[in-house]
Structures are given as C-alpha cells and as structure tokens.
C-alpha cells in the first residue's frame, strides 16, 4: 500500500488560516489502512482544528467527507455538491488523491494534510516499512523476493557493501541489510550459485527516467 503520515499540526494551521470554511476529505484506501487519512482520522483532525480556531476566536467551519478512493475521478465527483460551500479543501489522501481533487476543482485551493511516504507493507501493528519503489522492471524473481532497489540504502544490485554488519545496514542498526536477507533466502531456496551472476546496469527509463509514467490499456479504454 501507499503509506503516509499526517503533517505537523502547526503546518496544517498555517495552510488553512486564511479560510473560514474547509472541506476535510479523507480516503478509504491505503491511508485508512495505515491510519493516516481514513474516516476516523478525518474526525480527529476536524475536532482538533475546530478547537484550535475556536480558541483563536476565529471559528472554522469544517465539512467532513471520506471518499472510497480519492485517486479516482468517479469518487472525487462526490465532492462536487459541497465544493461551492467551502473556501478550500484539506485532503487527507496520498499525493495522488490531492492531485486528483486539484485537477477536478480548478478554482479551489487544495492542501495536503499528509506527507506521502512510500509503498510498503505492515511489519507489525503500527509499523510500516518500505518495500517497493515502482522501478517498472521488477527484479524480485531474481533477488529471491527481496528488493535491492527499495531496501538497500545504496541500491546495490550485486551484493552487500562493506558496511553490512550482523545482518544490519550501516546506515541504521535497526534496518535489515537487504543483501543479507537476499542471501538468506537464496540459501533456503538452494539457489546460492545465482548470487554470482552479475546483474547488469539497470535501465531506469521504466522507473521514471523517461519522464512521468503512464499505463494505457487499449483493451479497457472506452
């Protein structure tokens, strides 16, 4: 999923200070799962902002909405009836959702309430970790299911650097060395000889090196 964290309260307050009414828009997908921008977080943030501006003597009117998916025009359309009644939108979706709202409502200021972080997985309750950088040409089949692009701090394709120590990365002792994980998996799979195949220099075009990326499925297009 796409993970995100809420921005600091002060930054949000600065963004919406000039406005008297806002639409606070959550998203029911990834940011709900990582507890950053779902219906519950919308409610909590709305209450906190209302209280803050009330104390300041400048009451803020907040409408709350949580869309099924903010990255999908079909659902973003559900904001249309409320949009004329507010001065600005504060979006609790990932960056994709924020941009979709901005695209649909051309003359309405839109602010992100979250910092979008990475594509990751839940390691345990309350902990998410990066797993994929969307490089567009997946090597997991070769690297035993552990990604060197997303999980090696130096993005090494051919084994651990000299800083791998006790299975940990030199950058952070709490971070697993991706190549230690790859090596352990190769051993479990009986594929250690694969380690000695040199992976050639990567073509970064599918990773975004050729400009912003797009998928066009002719078979699905209307």
């Amino acid at each position: 999923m796409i993970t995100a964290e809420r921005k600091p309260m002060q930054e949000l307050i600065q963004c919406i200070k000039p406005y008297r009414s806002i639409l606070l828009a959550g998203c029911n997908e990834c940011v709900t799962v990582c507890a950053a921008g779902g219906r519950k977080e919308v409610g909590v943030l709305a209450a906190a902002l209302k209280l803050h501006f009330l104390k300041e003597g400048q009451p803020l009117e907040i409408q709350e909405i949580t869309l099924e998916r903010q990255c999908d025009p079909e659902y973003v359309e559900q904001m249309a009836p409320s949009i004329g009644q507010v001065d600005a939108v504060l979006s609790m979706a990932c960056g994709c959702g924020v941009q979709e709202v901005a695209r649909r409502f051309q003359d309405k200021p839109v602010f992100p309430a979250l910092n979008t972080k990475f594509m990751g997985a839940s390691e345990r309750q309350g902990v998410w970790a990066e797993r994929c950088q969307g490089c567009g040409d997946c090597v997991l089949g070769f690297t035993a299911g552990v990604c060197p692009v997303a999980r090696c701090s130096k993005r090494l394709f051919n084994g651990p650097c000299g800083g791998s120590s006790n299975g940990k990365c030199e950058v952070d002792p709490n971070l697993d060395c991706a190549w230690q994980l790859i090596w352990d998996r190769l051993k479990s799979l009986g594929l250690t000889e694969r380690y000695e195949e040199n992976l050639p220099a990567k073509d970064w075009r599918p990773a975004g090196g050729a400009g912003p990326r797009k998928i066009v499925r002719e078979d699905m297009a209307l």
Partner: protein
Amino acid sequence: MKTASTLEKILASGELAVTSECGPPRGALPEKIRAKADLLRGYVDAVNVTDNQTAMVRMSSLAACILLRQMGLHPILQMVTRDRNRLAMQSDILGAYAHGIDTMLCLSGDHPHFGDHPMAAAVHDIDSIQMIQMVKDMRDAGVFQGGEKIDGPPRMFIGAAANPFADPFELRVSRLAKKVKAGVDFIQTQCIYNLDKFEKWMEGVRNRGLHEQVYILAGITPMKSVGMARYMKHKVPGMDVPDEVVKRLGGVPKDKQADEGIKICLETIARLKNVEGVRGFHLMAIEWEQKVPEIVERAGLLPRPEGLTLDVQNVLGGKP
C-alpha cells in the same frame, strides 16, 4: 599489459607493490594536497586520491589527481557511485585519462548519512560492480556504457575494494569473484587487524584461483592510539578490530601508543608478506601521511622500483 599504468607494470613484474592515499583538502588550496603527496614521493608506487570520502565535500578527486600527476606522481582516481550517474562517470574517466591518469578505483562510497550533507540525494545509478564492467568495456571494447563507440578509449587499470570482514562472511569470496568476473584488475582490501580472518578469506580466494586473476593489495592502517582503535572497532561499519589489538595499545603509556601502533602495523606487513596471493600493500595512514615513508622503510619495502615512481620527464612530454 592491458594498460600503461605504472602500478600494473610493478604488479606484473612480481614485485610487491606499495600504494598509499591522499585525501584532497576541504577547500580550494592546491598546496595542501601537494604537501601531503610530496611526503609520499619515492616511497610508494601510486597514490589513491579519495572521492569525497566519508561523504564530506572535498576538492574533486579528478582535480587533485591532475595536481599529483603534474608533480610526476601516479595518482589512482577513486570514484564512487554515490555522487555521479553513468554519464558523469564516463566523462570524468575520459578527462582523467586525457590528463595521464591511467589507474582508478571503483567504489560505491560512504552513504551521505555519514557526511556533512546528509540531506543530499545519493545517485546510485549503477553499483560498483557495474562500474567495473563499464570501465572495462570502455577500455577493451572501446564502447560507452550506452553502447556507442568511443573515439579514443581510455585504457584504465581497474581497481576495486574488498572487505573480507563484513557480513555475511561466507559470501565475501563470492563478492570478489563477481568483481573479477566484471573485469577488475587489482583489489585494495579494508584495513586488516584480524589476520586470522583475513588469512581464512585468502584461503577461500586461493581455493577458487582468484589470486591468479586479480592482484590483491592488503590494506594497512597504523593505529595512532588506543582511542583510535576503540573508535574503529565500535564506530566504523565493516571494521574488525580484535580485542587483543585494543588491549595491546591500551597496555602501553599514552606517549608510546603511536609507536606501538606502528609496531603492530609492521608485524602485520611482515606476516602478510608470506600469504600467497598478497601482491602488495595499501597503506592508509589516516591524517598521518608523514608516517608512510618510515613504515615503508622499516617494512623492508624500499627501494621502490627505480625510475617508475618519478617520471617527470614523461609528464613534461605530455604523454600518458
């Protein structure tokens, strides 16, 4: 001979090679690196010039290499994958070779996290093994990494690092094998303090015949004090400093610790001279360059091969 590199000539002759290193200054003063390099003249065969080591901004390795070359020394251009993409690397390699720099070292580099610009984006377009392959293809096939032909290919003698002490130990010989497969000509190892482990690694290297495909220079760094030993042991990733070394340095008075450090380093060189496959030494006297001549002399590595360490004539003639 693959190249005109002096280091290659010495290694091919069977003589033990000696290299050392110079960190470029944190400023634009050329006399600083000249002074450091001058200490090494006549005592080493080639001098590594580091590339923003420890991820701190310094005078560029290429520019500092040119200064050394103008002094008639043989610089080894260090290049890390952290700061350059493949276009920048290749153009700098062409520029280096045009200035008579024919030996280089391919590294991934310390992570920006450790330096003075932790906010910088690391490039890592290619990794160090892919860089070795790229430099080899530039030399032997005369092509750029992108496939186009080079008009006047650079003939670099290609080096890389190896750390026998990092984890997982069991694939450290394999990692060397990968570098050999990519086309590396010589290796400089991480500083060696745990000799037993190094010898075990060398045994693995010999078992696969890798010592006959690549020249291995053993990395040596003299300890200045017990404080330095403790720092290296606990704070430097991938460094293996056994307790005995710390104890030995701690067991002598403070003003004798530097001497003890030199003694340990000389004993290390003496022992490693007998290890089959060790073809020379890489002396990294960190901010202690003035000790290199003494170490080289006391280790019985003098004189350096005549006429090779000083070839000012060649430089003045303008030919690499």
